[in-house]
């Protein structure tokens, strides 16, 4: 989905809140949230792709205004409700107030049937797919051309894995794009490397 989470290359954001030896957690509840969603994953209630997708499904204004760990919390609660572990009513009763959840999921998809195999040095193009469900193709590479630098072991296909759709594992390719290709005349000179699933790519001849 072309969601609010897909931030790469978005303009208008200010300076990074950088400090030396910055902390991961600031409040005790943040560590509890991290632990609780890790526990849910360990117990097999949901997987990491479902977890990421439930964050992406947050209403955009909620996504942008929530802290990082409030997003984790919202995903955890949404999935517990969707999986029938806890009802929304029980959560709100226990929380003594409203408990906003993410928006409903759209259908996922299986791997592309005719996937191509690539090797380092191959020139590839990211397909111009638009999918309603989970996808790990950041919008800034859609339709762009780059060069394969390496191949990963096969992973569960996120577009399927986040939706309970049966699918084969498939490799990702680290693809090297120039910022000039991604944002012509509008970026610092650099290369951006993205781990791109095989189903998202086609060969450029």
């Amino acid at each position: 989905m072309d969601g609010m989470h897909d931030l790469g290359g978005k303009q208008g954001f200010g300076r990074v809140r950088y400090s030396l030896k910055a902390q991961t957690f600031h409040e005790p509840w943040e560590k509890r949230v991290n632990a609780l969603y890790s526990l849910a994953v360990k117990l097999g209630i949901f997987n990491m792709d479902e977890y990421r997708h439930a964050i992406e499904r947050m209403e955009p204004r909620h996504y942008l205004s929530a802290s990082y760990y409030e997003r984790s919390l919202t995903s955890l609660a949404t999935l517990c409700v969707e999986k029938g572990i806890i009802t929304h009513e029980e959560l709100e009763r226990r929380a003594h107030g409203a408990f906003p959840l993410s928006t409903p999921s759209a259908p996922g998809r299986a791997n592309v049937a005719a996937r191509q195999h690539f090797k380092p040095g191959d020139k590839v193009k990211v397909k111009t797919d638009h999918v309603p469900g989970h996808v790990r193709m950041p919008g800034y590479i859609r339709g762009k051309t780059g060069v394969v630098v390496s191949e990963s072991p096969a992973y569960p296909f996120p577009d399927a894995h986040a939706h309970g759709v049966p699918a084969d594992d498939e490799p990702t390719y680290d693809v090297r794009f120039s910022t000039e290709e991604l944002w012509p005349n509008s970026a610092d000179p650099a290369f951006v490397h993205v781990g791109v699933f095989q189903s998202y790519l086609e060969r450029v001849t």
Partner: protein
Amino acid sequence: MPDQSHVHQTVASVEQRVDAIQAAFDERGMKPGEFIEEFRHLAEEQWVPENGARVVAKAWTDPAFRQRLLANGREAVAELGLSMPAHHRHLVVLENTPTVHNVICCTLCSCTAFSIIGLPPDWYKDLEYRARVVRQSRTVLKEMGLDLPPEMEVRVWDTTADTRYMVLPLRPVETAGWSEEKLAKLVTKDSMIGVARL
């Protein structure tokens, strides 16, 4: 009676919402309290940048290890007794050189090789870093205190799959003859993310 179902309730605080889930888990026998303690231990004692620092120091002093690390990061860190979660199937180590600088990010969420370089700092997960570092790498790094010369090639790595990345910083020239232990103390989490050079 007015219809109460459309009356807006005040949103519960984040603490109240976490408490609600924890209590619901507890009632279902999922033992959240025990797991929170276990997680706290992992986060504070196990997933620390000192792990990655040992890897870097070893790579600086042992050329054969360095080659193995660059060829297969996951297997090489296992030699030092370091492990990664099962779903992190691949660790790619990115070597900085005098002319190439690598920096990692996750524009879609916050993925990192946390069991090796430590859990991600707050700013890594912020909207600003995620939005800007891919497009304005040199500007963002300069704002963060790292001013790279124009002739230095910059490579940004966006962690969009479960492959994990870490930067192998360039060894400072003044450290000739130092022991691995002394070298490891130089290596910071930020240098393994690539927002600092040592």
